[in-house]
């Protein structure tokens, strides 16, 4: 049973526009959420995180939104750049010291 779901396997966005990556989770006890970015043949690298006490966290072009009532989070990338083309993993854990559970990933293509 997937506790962290990324229902879109791929997404294509024009360069300069906003990329929105979505993620749903089933465990209401999750307290900490993360996004990872992965290039081909490399391991995923940490991008941005958010604690359940917040509903928004921003870091440069990247913003993560959390809607706890809907058990939904999203990653916004504005403006999208060619180097953003990668696979993005949504992840969650019960707290910051617990094992992280990853979604299956969404491949983002930034079109010229």
């Amino acid at each position, binding site marked *: 049973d997937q506790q962290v779901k990324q229902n879109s396997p*791929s997404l294509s966005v024009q360069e300069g526009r906003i990329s929105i990556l979505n993620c749903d989770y089933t465990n209401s006890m999750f307290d900490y959420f993360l996004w*990872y970015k992965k290039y*081909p043949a490399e*391991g995923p*690298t*940490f991008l941005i995180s958010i604690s359940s006490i917040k509903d928004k966290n921003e870091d440069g072009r990247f913003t993560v939104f959390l809607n706890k009532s809907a058990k939904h989070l999203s990653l916004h990338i504005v403006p999208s750049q060619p180097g953003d083309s990668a*696979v993005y993993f949504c992840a969650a854990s019960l707290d910051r010291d617990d*094992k992280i559970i990853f979604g299956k*990933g969404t491949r983002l293509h930034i079109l010229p």
Partner: protein
Amino acid sequence: SAVISQKPSRDICQRGTSLTIQCQVDSQVTMMFWYRQQPGQSLTLIATANQGSEATYESGFVIDKFPISRPNLTFSTLTVSNMSPEDSSIYLCSVDIRVTAGGPMETQYFGPGTRLLVL
């Protein structure tokens, strides 16, 4: 998909000793990685385990401290050497799997993790 198992699932070790963590995958995979998640921090990549050659280590990690073996395409080990309390972490093995449904894509599967406490 891939099923990944790790041994041990947890251990408590004394300072100065070494622990070897095993990772077994139920299918042949090209890319295997080892990660560490220290308390209060996010996942950090230690190294890429290469089959038939030396592992590729990330900045801040060295082979003497974290020797890695990859004898075949389904198995790898990570040793945490000369442990100190700062090595207390969850250590995870992960693999890249290429899936073709909806177009070629790499996805990442993680093992269940090994929780290590160093006293």
